[in-house]
């Protein structure tokens, strides 16, 4: 049995330009969101005088570290709106970017293990269906049909009592996605500037005028933050305090295995989310480390717990080998929903707080954030995710009855 080789990347990806003295738009953060925003600014709004500034290597943060789950089966209308918009973009993204992003709509199962899980899950399914999102409730035997290796034995500690199923959900290959956006952005003439850390943001009369970087000062008409876990650090440069906490989030991968796992399985109660990627490796996410941290590493007892949970649901994984673990930095908000919109500083825009869920939103938020930056007004899909909601109390709380927030 031979593994499935990945498609080749194109022969050319991007230039490595030196920064110019000024740009119409400077995007801070060359991850998936920053690159997608640049792309849609050019494509949808005709703005190409853009620099994307990345302090390390492009898409080397959470974009390179996530478990690539894509789904839109969120509880609240506001969430399902933006995530479903994103999912629809995913469905044509490969052609749009002309890049083999390996978007695979293999479905996602969100398992229920308690009677309250069942109520919450069914509530989400009903809401999803009325929002036009494919979702169904599966009984345990139906779960086993979708994913035969899930242990549905009723005698385990937390038996599988059923699951929600979104067939259109799936996974994609993260680097390919990021590089697809990057290549397109570069082709529009957008400057992707690596090893360029933003050290200051200049504001004059309440209006942003540029950024200071390790590669010199850059003037900017507009500045769009897309720094994920480092957003608080960036916002602090203009004295903006945000309801964000940055935490390590770990993930891991096994060796290449013959196909055993046809879908994506997520469990809140037993805390597992796992898929088998294209080449055959199991890709699995662990729980979030409890403390604030920018170290891109987490504690090992989280991984051990994760392994125990995985074997509860998938006894066949017993002798799969953990090949590699790593961690990203996730910026979490009090209501487990993102913040995308305007700031008190004129022409300074904010996209952050995606916590563990940012990858799936990449095209969707790129689209909406580009709209926000280009027009100075939030897109209807990101309007509910304004910073002001923490003052009014109009939260979009995806903790409680919602699915696992990954």
């Amino acid at each position, binding site marked *: 049995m031979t593994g499935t080789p990945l498609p080749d990347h194109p022969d050319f990806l991007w230039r490595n330009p030196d920064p110019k003295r000024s740009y119409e738009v400077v995007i801070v953060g060359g991850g998936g969101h920053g690159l997608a925003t640049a792309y849609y600014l050019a494509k949808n709004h005709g703005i190409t005088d853009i620099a994307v500034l990345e302090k390390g290597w492009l898409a080397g943060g959470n974009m390179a570290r996530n478990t690539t789950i894509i789904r839109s089966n969120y509880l609240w209308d506001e969430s399902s709106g933006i995530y479903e918009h994103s999912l629809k973009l995913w469905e044509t993204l490969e052609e749009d970017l002309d890049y083999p992003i390996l978007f695979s709509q293999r479905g996602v199962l969100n398992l229920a293990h308690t009677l309250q899980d069942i109520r919450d899950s069914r509530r989400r399914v009903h809401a999803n269906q009325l929002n036009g999102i494919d979702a169904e409730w599966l009984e345990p035997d139906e779960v086993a049909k979708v994913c035969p290796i899930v242990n549905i034995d009723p005698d385990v500690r937390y038996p599988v009592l059923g699951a929600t199923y979104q067939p259109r959900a799936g996974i994609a290959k993260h680097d390919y996605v990021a590089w697809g956006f990057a290549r397109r952005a570069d082709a529009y003439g957008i400057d992707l500037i690596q090893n360029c850390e933003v050290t200051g943001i200049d504001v004059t009369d309440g209006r942003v005028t540029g950024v200071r970087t390790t590669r010199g000062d850059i003037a900017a008409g507009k500045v769009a933050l897309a720094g994920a876990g480092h957003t*608080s*650090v960036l916002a602090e440069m203009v004295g903006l305090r945000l309801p964000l906490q940055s935490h390590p989030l770990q993930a891991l991968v096994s060796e290449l295995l013959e196909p055993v796992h046809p879908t994506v399985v997520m469990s809140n109660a037993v805390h597992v989310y796992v898929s088998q990627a294209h080449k055959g490796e199991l890709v699995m996410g662990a729980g979030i480390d409890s403390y604030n941290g920018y170290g891109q590493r987490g504690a090992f007892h989280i991984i051990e717990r994760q392994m125990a949970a995985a074997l509860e649901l998938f006894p066949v994984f017993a002798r799969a080998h953990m090949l590699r673990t790593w961690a990203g930095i996730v910026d979490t908000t009090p209501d487990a929903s993102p913040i995308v919109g305007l700031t008190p500083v004129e022409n300074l825009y904010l996209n952050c707080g995606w916590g563990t869920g940012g990858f799936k939103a990449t095209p969707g938020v790129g689209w909406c954030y580009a709209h926000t930056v280009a027009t100075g007004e939030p897109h209807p899909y990101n309007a509910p995710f304004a910073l002001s909601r923490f003052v009014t109390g109009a939260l979009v709380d995806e903790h409680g009855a919602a699915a696992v927030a990954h």
Partner: protein
Amino acid sequence: MQLIACPWCGEREEAEFHYGGQAHVPYPAKPADLDDEQWAQYVFFRDNPKGPFAERWMHAAGCRRWFDALRDTATHQFLSVHRMGEEPRA
């Protein structure tokens, strides 16, 4: 997994502790006097620095006491721990 020096029990494994976020954010003396913005700041907004951070921990599987710590969020290393109400000691 770090060793955390509980100021009451000494060094213990990180798994015994519960994290409590930013330290020194007192419950407002008169919440009713705050405007919505001020109240939101208390309820939802916390510092999130990269570097030294004054925060709270609780020795959940031990003495169950809350204590303050100064920890570097960039390295995750504890710089100091001290009992509630005491001044930080390096």
